[in-house]
């Protein structure tokens, strides 16, 4: 009986409360008032300037974020940027940045027919909207401008790079001229390069071929070009010793260049009749299919020496370990930092980083090439000295020195 009264009482309570809730018009009014209060504060201190050190057609817009961005009502979600060539509009959206951001780079196209074209030497006007989660609730800033963008003839942000290139160029010219005048230049020995001759001799004695892998780089990569020059020296020795050379390639252009390099080396060695065009051949442009093919050659032909020079990626260890299984002497060189440890572990000699580029000059022993090598060593010494001074300057807060080397893009 008591339970019945309780249930009826609860039902009455719910009924009355629902009637009371429906007869509460002031709440609706206050909601309308609240929605107008949801509009965020506009951005302030907006500045528009031409983007420096570029070819024009670009403007940098900066502003102080809205008071409701990260504070106040905290309801700003993003800022939308609009631009027009007239103060009165119409304004077109050119992009948006998330809340908390106070800068937008309007990089336009320089092609007049492109929809993103931004004209140079024309008045441009900007507006910034502080937008909430509901895109209809937004606050637009005042119209800003005019600003005109234009191109510059020199990128002053890259002056430190220009100075470094000029100094290095002058150093190279100085040492090349010194070498041409007959000055003896000492170049530190590089173990991996000195081993090349021994490795070719070993192949001759064993009557087994030499495998030369140019890597996965294209003919436009500096590492591959360096590898061509080393291939030229190796091929010349191979021709002199009448050993077999196998060069499987990954790229058809690399194949064509390598064929020319090997052919000319056989000519230089006075044995053009020994040159076989098929010794340099194309395999495939699929990374792991290439590895499978080269590994197959290694295990079938059992080369006495494997040389890996150029650009290598995940295949470096697959190749070098298979070469090791085949019992070959292995010499490697790459400028891919991630692959250097694999080569060091699996090969007998490894040219680390810049030694790959030095190899051709070192093997050639031509004074002009050795001169550039000497300049490279001096530049490296200068970098070490600058790094030490920079370390001290940063620790002692001597920022005049550290900012000297800052490159601004």
């Amino acid at each position, binding site marked *: 009986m008591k339970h019945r009264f309780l249930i009826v009482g609860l039902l009455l309570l719910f009924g009355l409360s629902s009637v009371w809730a429906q007869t509460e018009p002031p709440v609706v009014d206050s909601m309308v008032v609240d929605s107008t209060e949801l509009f965020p504060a506009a951005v302030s201190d907006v500045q528009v300037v031409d983007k420096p050190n570029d070819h024009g057609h670009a403007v940098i817009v900066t502003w102080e974020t809205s008071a409701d961005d990260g504070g106040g009502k905290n309801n700003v979600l993003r800022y939308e940027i609009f631009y027009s060539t007239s103060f009165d509009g119409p304004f077109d959206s050119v992009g948006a940045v998330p809340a908390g951001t106070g800068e937008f780079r309007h990089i336009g196209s320089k092609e007049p027919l492109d929809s993103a074209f931004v004209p140079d030497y024309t008045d441009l006007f900007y507006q910034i909207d502080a937008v909430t989660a509901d895109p209809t609730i937004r606050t637009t800033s005042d119209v800003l401008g005019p600003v005109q963008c234009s191109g510059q003839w020199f990128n002053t942000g890259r002056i430190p*790079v220009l100075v470094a290139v000029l100094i290095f160029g002058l150093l190279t010219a100085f040492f*090349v001229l010194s070498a041409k005048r007959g000055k003896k230049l000492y170049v530190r020995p590089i173990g991996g390069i000195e081993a090349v001759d021994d490795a070719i001799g070993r192949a001759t004695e064993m009557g087994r071929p030499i495998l030369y892998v140019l890597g996965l780089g294209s003919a436009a990569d*500096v590492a591959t070009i360096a590898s*061509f020059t080393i291939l030229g020296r190796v091929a010349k020795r191979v021709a002199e010793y009448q050993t077999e050379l196998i060069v499987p390639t990954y790229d058809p252009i690399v*194949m064509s260049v390598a064929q020319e*390099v090997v052919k000319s080396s056989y000519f230089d060695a006075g044995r053009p009749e020994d040159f076989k065009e098929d010794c340099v051949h194309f395999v*495939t442009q699929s990374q792991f299919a290439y590895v499978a093919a080269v590994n197959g050659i290694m295990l079938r032909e059992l080369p006495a020496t494997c040389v890996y020079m150029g650009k290598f990626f995940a295949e470096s260890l697959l190749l070098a370990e298979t070469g090791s299984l085949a019992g070959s002497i292995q010499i490697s060189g790459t400028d891919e930092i991630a692959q250097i440890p694999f080569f060091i572990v*699996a090969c007998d000699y490894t040219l680390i980083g810049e030694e790959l580029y030095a190899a051709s000059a070192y093997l050639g022993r031509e004074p002009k*090439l050795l001169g550039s090598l000497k300049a490279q060593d001096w530049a*490296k010494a200068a970098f070490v000295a600058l790094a030490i001074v920079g370390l001290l300057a940063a620790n002692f807060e001597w920022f005049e020195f550290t900012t000297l080397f800052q490159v601004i893009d």
Partner: protein
Amino acid sequence: MRQQIPLLITFIVGTLLIVSVFIPPFGDLETTFNIWFDIIAVFAFFLGGGNLLRVHINKLRKRKRDWGFSIVTIVGFLVMLIAGLFKIGNPGDIASAVDAPGSLFYDIFNSVQYPLSATMYSLLAFFVASASYRAFRAKNREATLLLIAAFIILLGRTPFGVMLTYWVPDSTSLLQIPNLAIWIMNSPNLAGQRAIMIGIGLGVISMSLRLILGIERSYLGGDK
């Protein structure tokens, strides 16, 4: 003459590209030259395919050692070429992508080439193990250092490493194995990598100057 013209082209293009780094109106030159290179590279694919066929047909004709593999290569090459050229089984029209899902080209690529590549790549795990075994044998001082560093990093990246040294007080938190592993990677390892990168940067500039100035020309082959 066969060397002079390429050397002249190398000098002009190289100099222009260096200048374009500092002169903003020339900033798009690199993209333009890359497009030209890509156009030339397309023709080289005929060269590559032709060479592949020639080498393997020669091998087959002369019944050289392992000539059976050449049959597989030639058949594989021709089947893919025909499947791609004639868009066999391609659900779209002539303008559709050569590797559209459902085409013979797509099916062969995904059923044969893709798993074979994955197999080759997975071999890397075993090769890493065998190479690590050789590298970490403490034969000399450097190899011992390598072994210790590798051991700390391996341990520092496992829950066991955390468990071993969690009791080390915060004042000496560097001695906790995970923190020690992070320190090795971020300090000595990164410093070494940056040193190599500076060397590579100088090497690239030096090599580029040699090429632009025509000092290094062995990549052009001979005059013969």
